[in-house]
């Protein structure tokens, strides 16, 4: 068990909790989207920490591949959410 791993993992947990809290409590749609992105970053931090083996050792590539995929999916989901927010705005203005 590495001190580095513990530190980064605990930080990841804190970020996930912060993101979730923001996503639940913010009234503004855009800030909820930001909060979900923060939460995702926390999850990525946890995964990369699990992959870390210590200095000079090759880390586990599977979580790295997962996170890489996750980053790209997160940005496209963010774009979809923003388009949805824009449409909601337009509808509300009409009605």
């Amino acid at each position: 068990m590495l001190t580095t791993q513990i530190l980064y993992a605990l930080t990841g947990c804190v970020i996930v909790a912060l993101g979730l809290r923001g996503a639940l409590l913010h009234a503004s749609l855009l800030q909820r989207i930001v909060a979900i992105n923060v939460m995702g970053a926390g999850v990525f931090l946890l995964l990369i920490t699990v992959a870390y083996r210590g200095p000079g050792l090759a880390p586990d590539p599977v979580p790295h591949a997962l996170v890489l995929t996750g980053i790209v999916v997160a940005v496209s989901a963010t774009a979809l959410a923003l388009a949805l927010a824009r449409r909601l705005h337009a509808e509300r203005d009409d009605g």
Partner: protein
Amino acid sequence: MTELFLLSALGLMLGLFLGLLRVLLGPGVGDRMLATQLIGTAGVGMLLLLNVLLDQPALLDVALILALLAAVAAAAFTGQQQTQHD
């Protein structure tokens, strides 16, 4: 030499924290954006140092991309969209 690199990385980290204070204090949005640029430069510098410290040559590429995309955020921040339908 390793000690020196670590010390320099810590120095950049200190600068990053000063930039962080400016991001938190503001007062204007422009000030915050400026401080974000400073944080970005600190990030580039730290990646350059980590590239030697951890023996990860690919971190040079990361630093390059971080530097290339630094201007994109600023442009998105200041860009004026044409007002057509909202």
